[in-house]
């Protein structure tokens, strides 16, 4: 697993308090990992801070799964 994926997973596990093995490629933050809409905003804020990138609101809305997040951040950073 890439370095980006590891770091994203760490943030998701910490923030949502879920088991690491639940955070799979297609795991949806809201449907599978129990996030509410405010959690997703906070995850995006945490990603921005961790990776030193800016994720605009319209892009943030497309980040629904763990895989989406890894893909977006890999391309952006």
């Amino acid at each position, binding site marked *: 697993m890439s370095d980006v994926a590891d770091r994203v997973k760490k943030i998701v596990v910490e923030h949502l308090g879920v088991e690491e093995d639940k955070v799979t490629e297609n795991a949806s933050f809201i449907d599978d990992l129990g996030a509410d809409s*405010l959690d997703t*905003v*906070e995850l995006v*804020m945490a990603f921005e801070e961790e990776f030193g990138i800016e994720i605009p609101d319209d892009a943030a809305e497309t980040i629904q799964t763990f895989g989406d997040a890894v893909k977006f951040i890999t391309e952006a950073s």
Partner: protein
Amino acid sequence: MFDLTGKTALVTGASGGIGGEIAKTLHAAGATVGLSGTRVEPLEALAAELGERAHVLPCNLSDSEAVDALPKQAIEAMGRLDILVNNAGITRDQIFMRMSDEEWQSVLDVNLTSTMRLCRGVMRPMMKARWGRIINISSIVGATGNPGQANYAASKAGMVGLTKSIAYEVASRGITANAVAPGFIATAMTDKLTDEQKDKINVQIPAARMGAPEEIAAAVLYLASNEAGYVTGSTLHVNGGMAML
């Protein structure tokens, strides 16, 4: 009690009677204050009076770009932003059937839309900090209505709905959002009234007098404090019993 040492507060309309008193009170409790308003001179004078821990942050609240930039400027000046007090407001009184679009819009823009923009602007830093206090200064008129003030009353009622919705969304993040609704408060504006006019007003107030800016500031201080952490989405009416809501 009510120690704000280490906290920072942005107060809009700090050049006015109530806003200035709010800033002084928060400052006296230990907070660093950002004084915002359109008129720079009274802000500078207030900052000079307060001495340390006071920053002048002029902003024209009818300029949406300037409003969006204000929270960032406040954080640059003070290092963080813990408390937002939306106190600035204008009136453009007119009998409703004659009220122009411009009279309506200007009041809604300054009183309600700028409040929304500033609340939105402070969300991110407050969410990160897991602590925040939003205090919106509404008015008794927002709850009771007032002839000649359809625009003002609508904006002040709107602030209450806005405050409650924000309170719902961010309560789990340690952020509270409340409103303070002053009744008649003695300021430079009410000094202009004749004794006869004042008597007419006082008759409607069970406390038989107008309120003092300090009495609004005390309500704001409470809502800004750690002690008020379980109070959110409420409207604190400070009106001498004029409307018991």
